[in-house]
């Protein structure tokens, strides 16, 4: 079955795709698990970031940095606004309705501005070519993206596990009322998490644009995959999200290469297996 180089390339692609998914899903996991808000407009931030890349990057390094800065600033601002909206609707079900509405409005605005056609984004100069992997060409940008993605994942891990902000986040996930009793305003904490998560998703949109380019509907796809990853990995767990994202990324790319008709279903199969596994463990633990 091992197909040598072809499989290796697919596996590398899987890593790149998994890291891309992780960058988006980690933020959503923090929203659901730490801030305790139902967020169904997360994919819109990715799509907006991807369009920002198309509009600003033009294959230049300056453009990439400009787009990245715009995405982070805009994402943080939009996230803060979203957090304000979510404060006005405290129940999860209403938050689901509100964010579905935000996603619909967002998709409409993006389509109005950039049209309904899928766009393709060129990576910055010097990263557009390909390198040889055992005699086969492989896009340089994807290799670079793996480095950036791994850097982002490591950075996020450091923030969550090695900083005070991360300690507060993990404490909130465990016992929000106790954190409030220690003087941390829950509202500000929730707003910060939503803002950072939205900025991260928009930044992922910029970086991922040359891989998964902007087109209507991508927001929904990204949201669904993120939800699958968050629930499979356990809401609030960045480590769980990383594992789930890498598994989904790997399985998706492998299936697209080898068994394309099954590819769209496989993330949900992963979700079902993850939940079955967790139920099984719980049952054994409590039995």
């Amino acid at each position, binding site marked *: 079955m091992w197909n040598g180089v072809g499989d290796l390339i697919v596996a590398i692609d899987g890593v790149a795709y998994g890291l891309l998914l992780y960058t988006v899903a980690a933020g959503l996991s923090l929203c659901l698990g730490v801030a305790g808000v139902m967020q169904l407009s997360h994919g819109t931030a990715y799509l907006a970031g991807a369009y920002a890349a198309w509009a600003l990057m033009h294959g230049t390094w300056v453009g990439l940095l400009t787009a990245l800065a715009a995405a982070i600033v805009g994402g943080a601002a939009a996230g803060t606004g979203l957090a304000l909206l979510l404060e006005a609707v405290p129940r999860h079900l209403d938050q689901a309705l509100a964010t579905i509405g935000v996603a619909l409005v967002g998709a409409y605005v993006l389509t109005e501005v950039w049209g309904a056609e899928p766009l393709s984004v060129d990576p910055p100069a010097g990263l557009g070519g390909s390198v040889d992997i055992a005699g086969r060409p492989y896009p340089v940008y994807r290799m670079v993206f793996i480095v950036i993605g791994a850097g982002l994942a490591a950075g996020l891990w450091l923030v969550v596990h090695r900083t005070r902000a991360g300690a507060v986040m*993990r404490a909130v996930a465990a016992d929000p009322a106790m*954190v*409030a009793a220690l003087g941390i305003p829950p509202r500000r904490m929730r707003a910060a998490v939503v803002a950072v998560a939205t900025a991260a998703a928009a930044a992922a949109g910029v970086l991922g644009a040359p891989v998964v380019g902007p087109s209507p509907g991508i927001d929904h796809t990204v949201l669904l995959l993120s939800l699958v990853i968050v629930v499979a990995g356990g809401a609030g767990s960045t480590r769980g999200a990383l594992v789930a994202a890498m598994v989904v990324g790997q399985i998706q790319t492998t299936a697209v290469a080898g068994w394309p008709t099954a590819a769209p279903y496989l993330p949900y199969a992963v979700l079902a297996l993850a939940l079955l596994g967790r139920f099984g463990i719980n049952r054994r633990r*409590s039995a």
Partner: protein
Amino acid sequence: MSTPLLRIRGLRVRLGTAQILHDVDLDIAQGSRHALVGHNGAGKSTLLHAIAGTVRPRAGSIMLAGRDITNLAPHRRARLGIGRTWQHPALCGSLTALQNVTLAMPGHDPSRAHRALMASGLGAHIDTAADQMSYGLRRRLELVVALAAQPRLLLLDEPSAGLSPAEINSLIMQLTSLPPDTSVVLVDHDLDVVSAIAHQVTVLHHGRILATGAAEEVRRAPLPHQARPRTVTPVFAPPPAQDRPVVLDVDRLTTGYHGAPVLAGTSLHVTAGEIVAIAGGNGTGKSTLLNAIAGLQPVQAPTTIRVGGREVHGLDAAGRARLGIALVPQDRRLFAQLSVAENLVVPRPGGSGPLGDPAALFPALAGRLRQRAGTLSGGEQQMLSIARALTTTPRVLLLDEPFEGLAQSVAEQLWLAITELARGGMAIVITGHRTDQMAELGARVLVLTGRGLSGPAPARGEQRRSSGPYQRPYR
């Protein structure tokens, strides 16, 4: 000798990281009226849940009338004849009383449900939705629901909680008139209820059975005490109250759960540098009082709470913390997966306030900064919980049962630290069972009984009231 109705062997229950029940063996005879007693957190409710099937044990077996029910789902156990009530009345709120009872009747016969409601004096409320009823009525309705299927075994979790003395009397009447072959397992903090109903008593202590037997025998039995207090030099001389400003001023605090009043107009004034010890039996609302002051428990009018003269109404828990209220809650509520150092930096960057490094107050913590909080010993966890509260530089420190489960030497060490804080001008409120000792050491003791605080109390006197025969061993 016939087999008991319920036979429990080697029952072990774990919830999260905490072992709640350790190898519990218990027999409940047919027709027995059995009380489980023990302090908060002893595992009484968990044992009821394990019998009902709503908590799964890790090990052990539960047999009902010779049949193994250890792995049966709750509804199957119910069909085998286990009925139950909860700490808060468990009813279907949008349904009427009649519908609630009908759904519990075998065969779902409304006319039998109707008769049952009439017989229990709820006839006037047959068409009232359960969530429109008063708390006392809901308690009574829940009992009718639990008895509708004529269970062989009835599990009652604090049936008297939140009831008035008159309501408690009618509850006792109702329970004593149950059919003689109905077995009852009862958890209740009201010793009048326990002694009026129970023939058998089991004492639980930290998830283990300390004693079990006929009520009279258990009362007389020489039980293993926790080490009697050694003589402690009084190190704390309380300052004359009138010389110091009132830091915490609680006036007519009123609150409750699910419509059941817990505190109705409790007032409390604490001056700087004073230690106030709140005594009172389980279920009198000691924790509720502290949580309400800290903002974790919603309060109702006409409550006013002032800290240093500032009204805290309108402030959430975080706002109150910044105003200078710090809570060391019951069960410590540490962030178990975080390290000691991380627990200390959550409230404030750097993890230290103007008091200096809180870890310095507890040298035992200094060497364990990188250890996970959940793996500390009980005493160290308590120290960490206090140290964590101190990082917010409080003016008022609320300690909820801080000495619970600690060895005497550790408790003494904690007490020294607490007096040290009071000497620095902090106002301190402590709840707990060792108030007699605290009184000897200079704390002002107030007694919380049912509906309010009274005191200053003769420390000995309150002990007699709250320490019935069952409370002595596990104080």
